[in-house]
């Protein structure tokens, strides 16, 4: 069991072209976990080799709605190597766990294997065997019979109805319908996004091992403490008895934050057979074992005057959820804040369909919301004959139109200016179909994006060891976004040691607790916590140096000392100059340890538990006097073949405001990753449903298309952010989710400019354009 250790010195330095030292906060230090991943040394959760490991394989429902009549396990049980066949009747009983808000659950048993079928691909049984192959073979022998009932396939199903009104989503001011009716220019259109899937490289899976009533789970996780809480509640053991280990994550995109039913199956199986059990989803199972992005529909109506100044926005949204779960994809989130409007109304319904409960996928809510409003304002621009960039500036929201508060920082105007300049927007010919290169119609589109700054409290341990090196510990995680790297930078800068001397340990729930790594909050939360812990360690170090009689500085009677490059000296350089290791030796200490957390001072143990294992204590982004968001503007060129309808993105320039960047190189990669995912969303990604069976049929990566390198042009990203003291301790705002928001509408707008065809249903596949 390797707990993960990474030394900064193993990776190549970033260039320090901006003048910042690569290893200081704000420097372009390369990913410190890069070499381990590239050489294969990085051990992912399910790669652990454990003594006595058994293998579980899931059996899934082949109908979308109905009841399990019977499960015949006889031939599976007789199959070689089979240790146990789990069905709803034979699996141990679990307790229902609380949700991610920590809401007290109903006091009833929980069974991760279903008798009542509410979607195709639901787990109904599992086989545990000595080898993976034996488990696969036996799983195919489990014979499940069903009593099938008609299913509600999707939002367009006649049986789906209008759904449930989610009043908490309603946002209204002024009199939007009346102002719309009175407006001289009116546009109204419907925008749809399909089911989309996170499709991480590393499929979901875990190894679960019980030792008495202690459970260890090796599982890729965006939230160790939250998942540990769920496991603890399911199995009715103390939270402290559950250890989650997740040193690396092969992509999450929102899908790995919660303990899911397959985890309950594996941990139950391990308990039942008294051996560690490994369960890994097949790629097809990753399309039904947990939820992707819900399909959405929105209507956006905008009333404006002839100069394109918005008078009213009326927005209605619908997203699908499952038959017995609730997922709300907040569709009015961008609609309500992007543009100034005196009159506004947004409402949302949720419709139950026979699907797995949808889940979080990069920028849930903001992403589809932006597709609606950023397409609609483009339509308005053409309607009134104003440049799409100009109309956005004309309706610029000088404050948060919904919260009616000042923006903490909003560098969106700067983003428009910088992006337009780099892209050459002023050379755009306004008319659709007016730019071409041979058979290629060329279109230029713009759209804005935003994502709220989600804030929470964090905790970290910083240790200065006898040899002068530094350890940072946190149960937060790195799923590729660069946590290892920026926390090393933060500790190095705060303590005055080279980043080479910092070891960051993450991904073990035994470490200092951490909340969810989602909503682009982790960097802001954790740099703040590490900064605090490191500051307190530094105070201890300096305090010892000044006050300990054995210290070489004792005689100096200084009231402070400076630590730089791992050495301690007096501010004026007139006293001794010793290394941290030498100082610790002289005062007879083998370490200094400090825990830092950013919780309010009077927090109780219960507050802490709640803070790290639920999202109930997240700080609202409109708390206090400010409204806090990240912002971006995407300028995109597409080439559409006039005969074939194929769309290729040929140029992207995006300017983004994520506040201060802790590491520009990593932030740029995150932004680009988001933009690439946005290109996939705009042009390729869609779960395709067999309506008779209620089943997604393109449930593999040959048929569910994500972009390849050949689909991605050079992407230029420009940082226009400034430090935002209201958003985080060190001035950063969110990075990870921002980049995807607004990409799909920028592409759809460019496609309209190229072809004169407005595509309002994603993805924009070729048959929609020929």
């Amino acid at each position, binding site marked *: 069991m390797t707990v993960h250790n990474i030394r900064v010195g193993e990776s190549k330095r970033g260039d320090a072209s901006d003048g910042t030292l690569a290893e200081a906060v704000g420097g372009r230090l390369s990913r410190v976990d890069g070499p381990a991943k590239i050489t294969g040394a990085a051990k992912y959760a399910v790669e652990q080799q454990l003594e006595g490991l058994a293998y579980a394989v899931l059996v899934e429902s082949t109908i979308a709605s109905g009841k399990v009549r019977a499960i015949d396990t006889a031939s599976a049980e007789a199959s070689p190597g089979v240790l146990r066949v789990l069905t709803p009747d034979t699996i141990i009983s679990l307790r229902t766990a609380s949700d991610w808000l920590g809401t007290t659950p109903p006091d009833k048993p929980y069974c991760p294997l279903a008798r009542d079928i509410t979607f195709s691909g639901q787990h109904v049984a599992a086989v545990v065997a000595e080898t993976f192959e034996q488990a696969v*073979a036996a799983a195919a022998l489990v014979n499940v019979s069903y009593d099938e009932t008609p299913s509600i396939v999707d939002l367009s199903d006649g049986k789906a109805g209008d759904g449930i009104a989610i009043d908490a989503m309603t946002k209204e001011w002024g009199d939007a319908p009346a102002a719309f009716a009175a407006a001289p220019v009116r546009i109204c259109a419907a925008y749809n996004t399909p089911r989309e899937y996170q499709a991480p490289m590393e499929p979901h899976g875990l190894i679960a091992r019980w030792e008495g009533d202690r459970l260890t789970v090796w599982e890729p996780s965006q939230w160790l403490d939250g998942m540990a809480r769920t496991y603890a509640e399911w199995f009715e053991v103390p939270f402290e008895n559950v250890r989650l280990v997740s040193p690396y994550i092969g992509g999450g995109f929102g899908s790995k934050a919660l303990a899911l039913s397959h985890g309950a199956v594996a941990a139950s199986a391990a308990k039942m057979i008294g051996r560690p059990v490994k369960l890994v989803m097949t790629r097809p199972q990753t399309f039904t074992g947990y939820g992707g992005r819900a399909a959405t529909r929105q209507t956006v109506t905008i009333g404006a005057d002839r100069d394109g100044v918005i008078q009213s926005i009326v927005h209605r949204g619908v997203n699908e959820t499952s038959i017995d779960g609730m997922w709300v994809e907040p569709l009015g989130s961008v609609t309500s804040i992007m543009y100034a409007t005196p009159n506004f109304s947004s409402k949302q319904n949720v419709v139950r369909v026979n699907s797995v409960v949808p889940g979080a996928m990069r920028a849930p809510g903001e992403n589809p919301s932006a597709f609606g409003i950023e397409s609609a304002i483009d339509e308005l621009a053409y309607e009134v004959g104003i440049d799409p960039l100009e109309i956005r500036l004309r309706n610029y929201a000088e404050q948060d139109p919904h919260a009616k508060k000042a923006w903490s920082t909003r560098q969106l105007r700067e983003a428009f200016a910088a992006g337009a300049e780099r892209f050459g927007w002023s050379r755009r010919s306004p008319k659709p179909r007016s730019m071409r290169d041979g058979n290629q119609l060329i279109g230029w589109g713009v759209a804005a994006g935003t994502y709220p700054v989600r804030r929470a409290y964090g905790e970290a341990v910083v240790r200065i060891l006898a040899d002068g090196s530094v350890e940072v510990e946190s149960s937060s995680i790195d799923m590729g976004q660069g946590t290892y790297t920026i926390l090393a930078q933060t500790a190095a800068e705060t303590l005055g040691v080279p980043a080479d001397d910092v070891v960051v340990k993450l991904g073990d729930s035994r470490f200092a607790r951490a909340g969810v790594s989602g909503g682009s909050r982790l960097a802001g939360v954790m740099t703040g916590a590490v900064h605090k812990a490191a500051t307190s360690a530094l105070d201890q170090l300096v305090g010892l140096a000044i006050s300990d009689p054995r210290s070489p500085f004792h005689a100096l009677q200084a009231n402070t000392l400076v630590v730089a490059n791992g050495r301690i000296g007096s501010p004026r350089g007139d006293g001794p100059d010793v290394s941290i290791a030498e100082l610790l030796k002289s005062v007879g200490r083998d370490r200094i340890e400090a825990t830092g957390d950013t919780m309010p001072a009077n927090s109780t143990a219960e507050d802490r538990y709640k803070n790290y294992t639920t999202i109930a204590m997240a700080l609202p982004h409109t708390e206090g006097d400010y409204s806090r968001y990240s912002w971006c503007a995407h300028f995109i060129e597409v080439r559409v*073949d006039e005969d074939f*309808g194929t769309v290729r993105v040929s140029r992207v320039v995006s300017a983004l405001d994520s506040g201060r960047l802790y590491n520009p190189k990593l932030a740029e990669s995150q932004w680009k990753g988001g933009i690439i995912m946005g290109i996939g969303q705009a042009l390729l990604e869609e779960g*395709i449903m067999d*309506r008779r069976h209620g089943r997604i049929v393109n449930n593999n990566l040959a048929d569910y298309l994500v972009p390849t390198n*050949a689909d991605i042009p050079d992407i230029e990203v420009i940082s226009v952010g400034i430090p935002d003291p209201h958003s985080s301790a060190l001035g950063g705002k969110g990075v990870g989710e921002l980049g995807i928001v607004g990409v799909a509408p920028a592409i759809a707008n460019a496609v309209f400019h190229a072809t004169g065809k407005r595509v309002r249903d994603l993805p924009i596949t070729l*048959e929609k354009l*020929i």
Partner: protein
Amino acid sequence: MRDFSYLRATSTDAARQAAALPGAMLLAGGTTLIDLAKCGVAEPDTLVDITHLKGLDRIAVDERGATIGALARMGHVADHADIKSRFPAISEALWQAASAQIRNMATIGGNLMQRTRCPYFRDPANFAACNKRVSGSGCSAIGGVTRGHAVLGTSEACIAMYPGDLATALVAFDATVHLGERKLLVDDFFLLPGTTPDREHAIEPGEMITAIAIPGSAAARRSTYLKIRDRQSYEFAAASAAVGIEFEADGRTIRDLRVALGGVATKPWRVRAVEDALKGKVLEPETVRAASLLAVEGAVDHGANHYKIELAPRVVARAILKLGETA
């Protein structure tokens, strides 16, 4: 557990004999076969690994034509200098197929034999009805998701599209499949589904593809493979065209023309109607576009695949016109 035996063939004859036994299957690069075994479609009792056979990966090209051994890798053939210069359509069909990793593993013999991507065919656990898998069980695709299905050569029993790119180029240039001594035109090697979609090739038990041969021609020398798809790489064709052209001395009048369609039919689809309509004509955009419409004569759609009927003639026309430009 599904046990199977693995046999490494030491000679072509031994391979053929072993493969003649019931439940035996040849294993080449494995990129189709192992995939289908994982989906539960292929359930071999014996795998006869032919990748160690000597001499079957040769590529020989001269003015009379090219002979490509069944074990030559897709990637090697695509990069072969003489294939590129004498048969550009073949090289282009190959490098636009699959991914670099697959092309490095996959063989030419296996490539011809690849199976349809029909999602119902590939998911026996959820869709019992598939005439191609189990004769007489019905067709799950008809009435279901058909975006990728064929519009040409379909039957009531099966509308599955043949997804291969190479065979489309081969059929345009009258290539033959060598099954040892027996030689068959590629066009005859692939069968229409008719009432027996489970039978896809005119290959008998105990036979094995040893090579393919492509006659050299002026049309093959001036040829191209145009593949259209939503994703720029690593996707099967929405529609594709293999086209070769030979002009009269005037450089404008079409002497010889070869046209085959991929991505739209149940087998590699030669379209002689387009060839005949244009032979002897001067290459003009209007004439070419009008003639290209003949490519989809008799096409039948199943809803979501209707776009293929629009798309295919445009792909043919573009490919022909592109070759004209390089005159």
